[in-house]
């Protein structure tokens, strides 16, 4: 292989996935699409944590953090879905642009 993989490869990959996650959050009008964007962002962060743990710190802290991130992501998804259900029950749609009743 021409390019030996190092830390930077993982970091750039993570940056790309992070940006795609932000893009996803910004362009999806479906609430669950936004949630998917959030998951992408969290995954990007996790890749960083694990890559640093492997290449720079050499200890398990990154793994522990990543475990907690995954855990929080799961919790967040559960709550988010519940909120979306309420959203849907109230507005009969899942389009977030309709949910602007809190605007000033």
């Amino acid at each position, binding site marked *: 292989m021409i390019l030996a993989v190092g830390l930077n490869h993982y970091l750039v990959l993570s940056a790309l996935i992070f940006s795609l996650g*932000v893009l996803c*959050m*910004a*362009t*999806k*009008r479906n609430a669950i699409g*936004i949630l998917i964007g959030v998951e992408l962002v969290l995954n990007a962060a996790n890749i960083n944590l694990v890559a640093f743990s492997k290449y720079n710190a050499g200890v398990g802290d990154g793994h522990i953090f990543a475990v907690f991130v995954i855990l929080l992501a799961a919790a967040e998804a559960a709550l988010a879905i519940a909120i979306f259900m309420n959203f849907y029950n109230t507005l009969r749609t899942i389009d*977030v*642009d309709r*949910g*602007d*009743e*809190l*605007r*000033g």
Partner: protein
Amino acid sequence: MNHMYENLLALGVLIPLISFAILAFWGAKIGKPKSSYIACAAIGLSCIMATYVLIGWSGLDADQKADLTFAAANNQFHWADFGKIPLTVGVKLDSLTVIMFFMVTFIAFWIHFFSVGYMEGHSDEVDGQCKYHRFFAYLSLFCFSMLGLVISSSLLFMFIFWELVGLCSYLLIGFYFDKKFASDASMKAFITNRVGDFGFIVGLALVALYLGTFDLEQAAATFSQQFSASAAAGFDPAHSVGIFKGWNLYEMFGWGTETDPMMLSGLGVATLMGIGLFCGAMGKSAQFPLHVWLPDAMAGPTPVSALIHAATMVAAGVYLVARVFRLLTPEAQFFVAVIGCITLTITALIAIVQNDIKKVLAYSTLSQLGYMIFGMGVGAWVAALFHLMTHAFFKAMLFLGSGQVIEGCHHEQNIMKMGGLRKKMPFTCWTFFIGVLAIAGFGIPFAHIGLGGYFSKDEILVVAYERAYNHSHGESSAKHAGENLEKKDAESHVRLASMTDASLSQFSILNSTLAASGGDGSHAHGTPEKEKIGATLPHLPKWMFWLPIVIAYVTPFYMMRCWWLTFMGKPRDEHVYEHAHENWKMFVPLVVLAAGTFWCSFSLFRPMIAEAGGVAADAPAVVAIDGVAEELKDLPKNKLDPTMLMVTHGEGLTNFNNPHIALGWIVGFAWIIGMGFAWLIYRNGVAVARQIKQVFPLNHLHRWLEQKLYFDHIYDNMLVMGSRVVGTVCYTFDKWIVDGLVNLTGILTRFLGNFTGRQLDMPVKKNDFGLVDAIANGLAALFHDFFGSIIRRPQSGRIRSYVILTAGTAAVVLLLVLF
């Protein structure tokens, strides 16, 4: 070059997966006839590869093969670590894999071919969704998983593919899911298989725990080392190692006393492991008491019955036993033999009274699987696998023939309504007859001419005979065993032996004698590094020899009955007879498979399996008598296990080189007698049989068999009712005790909450204080008046604008910092 064969095999596994992916995602667009071509092309390509490998492989000499096996074993992808156990993905390359791979792809290809014709009329639409492409997608997935199972080098991956195979079976049995009986049958098959798989998981866990590896080769090596070490210590639990160490029941359950704890013999754990692994095989190969799902599985389309429930998937159980054979203790082998013996007996009896053409074939499959498992159990490794191969060919052909009949007769499956079909469908009739001959064990005794079942089934019986009768000499003590060997008695199944310890430590478990027997090394290949603890096998009860013999007479009877009622005699139902017709797409595979039945009986399979048998000879207790022990003698030294012992064979074996001489008079003419008897009863239609049915003891017997020995009723009443009772008890407990506690907590909390809420947080009634509320309201009023009007403006309330704003700001700040 070194890895060419294994790469080809791995590729051959992946091609059906690609076909599955294509059909699963774009099948509906590809449409009705074309999607089947994709599946056929995929499996055809795999088959070509398999053929290429087979031809190349059989051209190699033994050393080259051993080299390739060794290279494949060392070319494994290290996937991950499971604690300290490495999980590796690799191809197990040996003669058995090659031949099994070829068998599966070959049969699968012709069944795909057959399906093209068969499914034309059998894929009605459900809810506007055409099922045609789904069928071929599932078939491709099945091929992928079955082939993966065949080439897996690790037990864990075998298990993964094992489950995939079970899934495909479930999907295909329930292919007509809009019909209640089909979806019920698929559920039954899946659940029954789960029972067996649970045992498989337990066995896997024990393998991981005690042998510390999932790799078949390493596991077997570790097992055999531990066996030797423990046997050298006389299976004294205190000095034994690893899996043979035994469980201290005092520490576990407090049984016995501290100084004199009760020990479960180490063989208990090792045997448990073997039985656990075999449980998986019991589920897939539908052995008693898990045999109930296979007849119901005939609810699926007939090509599926042929491919999965006759030729390949159910054989996976036998294949698994063959692969883990080296992990079976003599007791576990005995267990296997008993289960096989029971299965082959009861299912053959039930087959006599079945009227549905597919059910007859299903029960005959069960019975033949019983023969294979029985053969494995008695140590006839080679013969059992040989029977698997021959059976796969002729049973696939028989099922395809029945599919042709069912298709031709407009979904009529009752043989009582058929008859005389030979004029309408001659090809089907005569290929079916070849299948009947093959399963009946057609052959000319003493002349070495015959069809598949004749060679393979009789070989199993010869080994059983050896075990049941010639064994008795070695039963009493190891000394006898040694003497007998010196006498060059027919004690050939004793694979000797430890040369170090002539003290004849002996012990007995169940009714077996395991002996570390002494000897001077002349009759074993007695270099010290080949020292080995040999074990005589548990004594085989005589009924376990005679039952299969009797069933060897029953088999031709029910097969002949089925064939005669279907094709011969006079048409019993004009309506069915009128419609009968043949379709070339469907009888071409029949003819090919019939030719395959002839061919494989003679030339191809037997020697290759025997070659693979050398590896199995590493089992703690193994039988080398399968008629060709001389071939085994010349096997290359197994490079993976330098301690492996060559298979010894006693001089007495020579008499049994040709099993048909040994047993010629006992079963050689079974096919004539059985078939003749059937012909006598059924030659004039079913009238005679009806009369016989009325005779006193037979009428009860008939009903008993017709109800399949009431197994379904027993399971219904015991298991289903039992779980209902347990469920009710649990429900009551949950309702009154668990819920009661929860509700009590709720009431208490509510009381507390009421107090704190009203006094501290928010006033509800007039006199409530509501501390927090008061503060919050004050603050809110403040913010509303002052800051609210300023912050209000940019708040659109749209989440996406916030995201863009936040991210944009972050990006801009980041870039500002950087540049």
